[in-house]
C-alpha cells in the first residue's frame, strides 16, 4: 500500500490545480487546448530530461537563468512551429504561446532539473497528464459550449466537426465556463481517487 502511494503522481491540472491560466482563458477549442497542452508538456519533458544531463557543466549560480533561457527558447521555437502548422489557429492564442516558458508544469520540471532530482516516471506522467487535461477541458468547453470540435489539423482551414449550428451553452466557451468545467472535472477526479483509496499528497 505504501509503495503504491509513493508511485502515485496526481494530475497537475485536476489534482494540483497547476497551469490553469491558458486552459481557462485561451483553450476554448480542442485545437487550442491540444496546442497549448502539447507545448507545455513537450517543454517540460525536454527540460526535465535534458537539464540533469548538463547540470554538472553549468555553475550553480547560473543554473536557474540558463534553465529559464532554455525554457524561453523552447517556447519560442514551439510558437513558431505552431504558427507554421496553422497560422489561423495560433492567431487566436496570442501571448499564451510564449507564456508556455513560464507554465507551472514547465517550471516544476525546470526546478527539479536544476536540483538534479530524479524525475522519471513522474515527469512523463505529469506532462502527459497536463496534455490530457488540456485536451479534455478544451474539448468539453467547445463541444458543450459551442456544439462543435475543431481538430488541430495543418493548413489554413482546420477540420471541424459541427454537431449543432447554434452554440448551445456559450458561457462554457468563455473563461467563466472554463472554471466551471475545471471545477467539475477536479471534483470528479478527487471523487474517483477517493473511491480508489488514494489521496492527493
Amino acid at each position, binding site marked *: 500500500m505504501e509503495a503504491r502511494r509513493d508511485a502515485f503522481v496526481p494530475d497537475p491540472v485536476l489534482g494540483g490545480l497547476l497551469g490553469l491560466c491558458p486552459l481557462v482563458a485561451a483553450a*476554448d*477549442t480542442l*485545437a*487550442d487546448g491540444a496546442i497549448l497542452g502539447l507545448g507545455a508538456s513537450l517543454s517540460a519533458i525536454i527540460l526535465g530530461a535534458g537539464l540533469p544531463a548538463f547540470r554538472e557543466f553549468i*555553475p550553480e549560480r*547560473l543554473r536557474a*537563468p*540558463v534553465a529559464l*533561457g*532554455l525554457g524561453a*527558447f523552447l517556447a*519560442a*521555437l514551439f510558437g*513558431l512551429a505552431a*504558427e*507554421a502548422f*496553422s*497560422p*489561423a*489557429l495560433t*492567431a*487566436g492564442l*496570442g501571448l499564451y504561446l510564449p507564456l508556455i516558458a513560464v507554465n507551472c508544469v514547465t517550471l516544476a520540471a525546470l526546478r527539479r532539473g536544476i536540483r538534479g532530482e530524479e524525475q522519471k516516471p513522474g515527469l512523463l506522467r505529469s506532462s502527459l497528464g497536463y496534455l490530457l487535461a488540456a485536451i479534455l477541458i478544451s474539448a468539453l468547453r*467547445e463541444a458543450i459550449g459551442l456544439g*462543435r470540435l*475543431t481538430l488541430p489539423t495543418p493548413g*489554413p*482551414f*482546420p*477540420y*471541424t*466537426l*459541427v454537431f449543432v*449550428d*447554434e*452554440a448551445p451553452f456559450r458561457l462554457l466557451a468563455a473563461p467563466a465556463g472554463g472554471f466551471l468545467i475545471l471545477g467539475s472535472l477536479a471534483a470528479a477526479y478527487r471523487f474517483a481517487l477517493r473511491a480508489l483509496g488514494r489521496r492527493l499528497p
Partner: protein
Amino acid sequence: MDEARKQLLLQNLAAAGFFAVLAVLVAGVAILAESGSIRREREALAALAGRKAQALPMRFTDPDFSRLYLLEGKGSPRYGTVARLDGDGGSVLAALVFTGKGDLEAARIVGEGASGLPFAKDGWFSEFLGKGASRGFPRALADLRRGDVASGATRSLDDCAETLGRVSGAVLSAAERKE
C-alpha cells in the same frame, strides 16, 4: 585580476555566449517563418486585388494585423493586409484590399481559426458577413423581411467593424506618409 574573478568573468562570458547563440537561433527560425508568412500574404493579396504586392510591407503593432502592403498596379494605389477578424462564429484570417482613402474594396477568407463553419471557406461578403443569426444571410429578396436574418448580418458586421476601422486608419496614415 585574481583567479576567482577571472573564473567568474569567464563563466559570465560563457553564459552570455550561450544566450546569444539561443537568440541567434530563434531569430533565424523567426526570419524563416516570417518570410513564409509574408510570401503567403503577398500571394493572397495579389490573387484578390490582381496587383503585385510590394516587396517590403509596412509594420504595425495591432493585435489583429501586423503588415500592410502597397499594391502596385494601374490607377490609384491600393493597400492590402491579412487581418484576424473575430466574431461569434469563431475567428478567421481575411485578406483585405483598401483604397488609398481607407475604403474597403475587396476581402477574402484565407484561413479560419476555430470556426470550422462552411461560411468561412467561400466568398466573404456573401457568406461570412451576414452569418451569425439562427438563419443564414438572405439568398433571396424575400428573406430580407425576416428580422433575425437582418440582425445576423448586423451582428457580423459589428464584429468586424472595429478591426476594419483600425486597418482603414492604418491605410490612411500609410497613404499620408507616401504622399
